């Protein structure tokens, strides 16, 4: 399945080697020239979506990162750092200056695939459509080879657990394992616990 992760993007030509991230800006491009484009707000989940979708199409070999940088999150800078330096053992994007630059939902193999498959063109803070299209045309003039098989990163809705077992409580209302509400408790029985 091409582009398996949902997001705010536009799909153009499936054969184009160029994808574009427009960061905080909304910029439109000719559909016949670009494979996929869209903005990217966050330095964690946003980057994961871009990586997962881009590597699902082996024909994409170039990612242009343009548009206004997302202030504070520094999502564009974080994406560039991921590409150049990868992640550390904790999943933190090495050298990223963004707010919470952690990659958790895609594995290292997928990140390495992204780093190998994709060449990044840094046009952060460029919003001029003509200037960006000039860079696109330069890439379209090059004969880019397919990177081989698609790499599909499945999106798992609730990765932290398999579907939890049904919890049954007798005469009480369960809220969390640490917080069971007891509708039959008398208020006088409820002593205040000091902090």
């Amino acid at each position: 399945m091409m582009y398996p992760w949902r997001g705010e993007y536009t799909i153009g030509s499936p054969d184009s080697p160029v994808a574009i991230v427009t960061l905080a800006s909304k910029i439109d491009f000719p559909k016949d020239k670009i494979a996929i484009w869209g903005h990217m707000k966050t330095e964690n989940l946003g980057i994961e979506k871009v990586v997962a979708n881009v590597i699902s199409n082996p024909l994409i070999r170039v990612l242009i990162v343009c548009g206004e940088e997302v202030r504070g999150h520094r999502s564009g800078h974080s994406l560039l750092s991921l590409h150049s330096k990868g992640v550390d053992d904790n999943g933190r994007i090495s050298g990223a200056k963004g707010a919470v630059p952690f990659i958790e939902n895609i594995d290292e193999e997928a990140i390495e695939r992204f780093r190998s498959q994709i060449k990044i063109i840094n046009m952060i803070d460029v919003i001029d459509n003509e200037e960006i299209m000039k860079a696109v045309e330069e890439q379209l003039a090059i004969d880019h080879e397919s990177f081989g098989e698609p790499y599909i990163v499945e999106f798992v809705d609730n990765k932290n657990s398999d579907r939890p077992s049904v919890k049954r409580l007798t005469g009480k209302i369960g809220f969390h394992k640490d917080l069971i509400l007891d509708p039959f408790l008398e208020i006088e029985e409820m002593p205040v616990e000091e902090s």
Partner: protein
Amino acid sequence: MLNFSKEQIKIKIGDMSMGGQPGELPTVLFGTVFYGKKYRDHAPEAMEEIAGFIATQEELSQMTGNPGICDIFIGSEEQIETRLNFVLDRVPENRPICVDVPESELRAKVLDHAGEIGVSSRLIYNSLNLGLEEMEKEALANNPPGCAIVLGYNPKNMSTDGRMEILENGAGLLDQGLMDIAKEANIPNMIIDTGATPFDHNTAETIRSIPVMKNKWGLPAGCAIHNTVESWLWMKDYRKTHREAYLTCDVGANALPVMMGADYCVYGPMRNAGQIFPFIAMVDKFIAEGGEDYFGIEIPEDHPKRRLK
């Protein structure tokens, strides 16, 4: 509607009080200013607009009894002085201000500046989170803010337990928990942000975490649930033609954490103050009645329950 057997801590910073049992104190409402391209260069008309938002929030705060706090977005070093001064000139002199700074290095600079101009004790620090770096730790120790919002965002595990781990022990991502970091920096007050996540990313745990964390630590807790609504993909299209539906969801979502015991809401752009204050005042009235009638909680005179008959 809820009542905790665990003692619920009340904090007081300047003229703002927060916390206690659900219904006891009015919900504190943080409105964000200076977020967005329009305000980046501090153009006179944009500043005038922000001045209007601050005045409106204050007026609504006086009317309802829900404390209104300015959450000042700061995205670069050049913006620090202008934005802090602008807000400090427009809020009552004992009102805390909240600084909303996503980057660690920049947060350190904001702390230094607040120390220089003598407002550290009025500062609500948004936020102490996983992105913390060494420079920020030093700045916190040198100029501790009056209050830190500790953010329960754990990208490795977004369940309630995972969010608690980041606060309690760093979840293997930090050497120590954010709460200990705040204590070591001698920050006198701490409030919990359960860390709103987008739909399909354990969204409901943002809400579940509120009573669970209050039950565990007794600290004031809340979140910025408007971020979940803002990131809702389907709504992004729908809102283009149904603006009022989006605003309803954006404002209405804040009832969920408050019903679960939240002590504050970061409600998003301050331009929405006109909708959020009456709405949360109404929710507070429901909760306060439930607390007073059933649990015997004493409701102060400046609560929406008493002010807005």
